[in-house]
């Protein structure tokens, strides 16, 4: 950049410094967890929380997560809960979004308002009714309880998301498909789904992260170790009197990995401007 005045240089330095500071503060807890996950328990007992580790226990701690705790089981439970929930949410919200954006009917706005409005209810007020419902349905303390609840709960937001995305697609594409004799289901399959792939990818990551990270409903709707997801499982690792924070930290890092992996898997689907060339321009 030629001809940058002293003022601009100073501003730039302040800006970079400020950003660095905020990022450092933001990452500090994560950094602390990472650091703790490679310390030995003795060192933590001795109070060395922030200093350079005298001994690296990376392998020991991470193998301990799998050997001494039930994290693998919790991890599997989380996958059993999260993956079907995300798929369910994507399918349902694509269907609702398609109908609500393209086939208005009497009362469709009311239904849409209910989907959206449901998001504003605090989850806590549903705690007891939902638990009672699941008990009566015989789903309490099974993965199905969480799957059913998460699909129902996330579909509200996901419908808003998909409806707006599908409504933004050029209307003439739908008219053209209809003029060519495509049935609504064919339009959905051959026109809508290919065009909303970026939205589906974004929605998949969002709902995956929401559901994977959910702790509240995990402890409301499950009890036994055989169905508990990782979030509730992590809490199990805390002992009655003392906690092996290095092991808990290692387990935490392990638990945080899937959403990150999910993000990288879905990244290639975020192709912006996929609808370019559909209509003029």
């Amino acid at each position: 950049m030629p001809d940058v005045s002293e003022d601009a240089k100073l501003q730039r330095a302040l800006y970079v410094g400020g950003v660095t500071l905020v990022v450092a503060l933001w990452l500090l807890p994560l950094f602390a967890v990472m650091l703790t996950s490679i310390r030995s328990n003795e060192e933590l007992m001795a109070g060395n929380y922030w200093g350079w580790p005298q001994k690296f226990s990376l392998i020991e701690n991470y193998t301990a997560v799998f050997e001494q705790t039930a994290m693998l089981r919790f991890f599997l439970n989380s996958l059993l809960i999260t993956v079907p929930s995300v798929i369910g949410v994507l399918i349902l919200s694509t269907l609702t979004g398609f109908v609500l954006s393209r086939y208005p009917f009497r009362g469709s706005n009311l239904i849409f308002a209910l989907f959206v409005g449901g998001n504003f209810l605090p989850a806590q007020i549903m705690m007891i009714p939902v638990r009672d419902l699941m008990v009566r349905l015989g789903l309490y303390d099974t993965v199905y309880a969480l799957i059913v609840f998460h699909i129902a709960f996330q579909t509200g937001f996901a419908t808003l998301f998909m409806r707006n995305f599908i409504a933004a697609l050029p209307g003439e594409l739908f008219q053209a498909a209809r003029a060519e004799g495509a049935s609504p289901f064919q339009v959905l399959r051959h026109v809508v789904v290919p065009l909303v792939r970026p939205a589906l990818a974004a929605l998949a990551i969002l709902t995956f992260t929401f559901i994977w990270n959910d702790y509240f409903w995990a402890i409301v709707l499950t009890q036994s170790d055989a169905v508990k997801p990782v979030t509730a499982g992590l809490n199990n690792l805390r002992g009655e009197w003392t906690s092996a924070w290095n092991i808990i930290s290692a387990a935490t890092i392990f638990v945080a990995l899937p959403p990150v992996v999910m993000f990288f898997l879905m990244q290639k689907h975020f192709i912006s401007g996929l609808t370019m060339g559909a209509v003029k321009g």
Partner: protein
Amino acid sequence: MSSVELRKVDKHYAGYHALKAIDLKIEKGEFVVMVGPSGCGKSTLLKTIAGLETINSGQVVINGHDVTREEPGDRGIAMVFQSYALYPHMTVAENMGFGLRMAKRPKAEIDAAVKRAAKILRLEEQLDKRPKQLSGGQRQRVAIGRAITRSPEVFLFDEPLSNLDAALRTQMRVELSSLHAQLGSTMVYVTHDQIEAMTMADRIVVLNKGQVEQVGSPLELYANPANIFVAGFLGAPRMNFIEARVETVGAASLTLTAAGMPAFAFGDIDPVGISAGDAVTVGIRPENLHVLERADAGQASFPGQVRLVEHLGRETVLYLDASPLQATNSDSGTGNFTVQLNKVSPISVGARLTAGFEIAGAYLFGPDGRTLTSRKPVPAT
């Protein structure tokens, strides 16, 4: 190839009467252009033929068969949209074969139809490309190709050329006309561009405010507009209009006065319902308005000052300010009269001159806008 018939087609939107009891018959193999200003209902009318818009009352009949309640896909129509409406995630070949694929036709048949359409439209090299890799003209040809592959009874075009640049538009106009000659299909074409209407149509349907103003061949409409709206809509540059007042009413003539003009007589008209004092409008096409060497006693004339000169090569267009004469031609905003000369003219901006016209070539419109002058001969084609 099919005929299309609209019987008393009526359409309301919330608080808005979009189509007012439209009756129209389009013959087999005819190229009909529906033209009108924006908001006149022409696109809505096209979509009611397609079945993309429902109607409140009336009937849509294709090939003698009432299709009012049928889905667009069952009507034997194919539509080409202004925005092309190509599927961005499909190749050109997939786009063109979409309709047949949805109808679950055998692959060999689809491929053959796509190849045939691609050949007609010279798209053979582009079949594996995606829409965004194509130019505007190519995209429009793909959209037309998508219509051709289904071998429809009726082609419907909704302002298909308005997104193209001027040169390409002229070229596509010629291509569409020759496509019509080649396929012989019934085509209904909507545009707001009167040049497209004049050049392509077998018959023009002029629409205004949800009503049919006039139907006829381009030259018939140009020579004998039924009313002031059609007269002003067809022809470029636009017809000049002078606001005048009836002084005396004769058996087949009227004497008129207009501000800044000596009284002049208008013959060869049917003055039924016209009385002295009525406000009427005189219409003169720019090519019928001349620059006079000297004011002739027998000719209607008025003085004016040149505001703008356009040299189009062989022709010259002069924009005149002729106040206090009241005119309703607002084509340019620079002057209220347009004179088209079939020669290069040395007249320059600021010049004062006298403009005149022959009564025989002019039109007279009554207070309700109806044409009062009798039929003019239509040039034979």
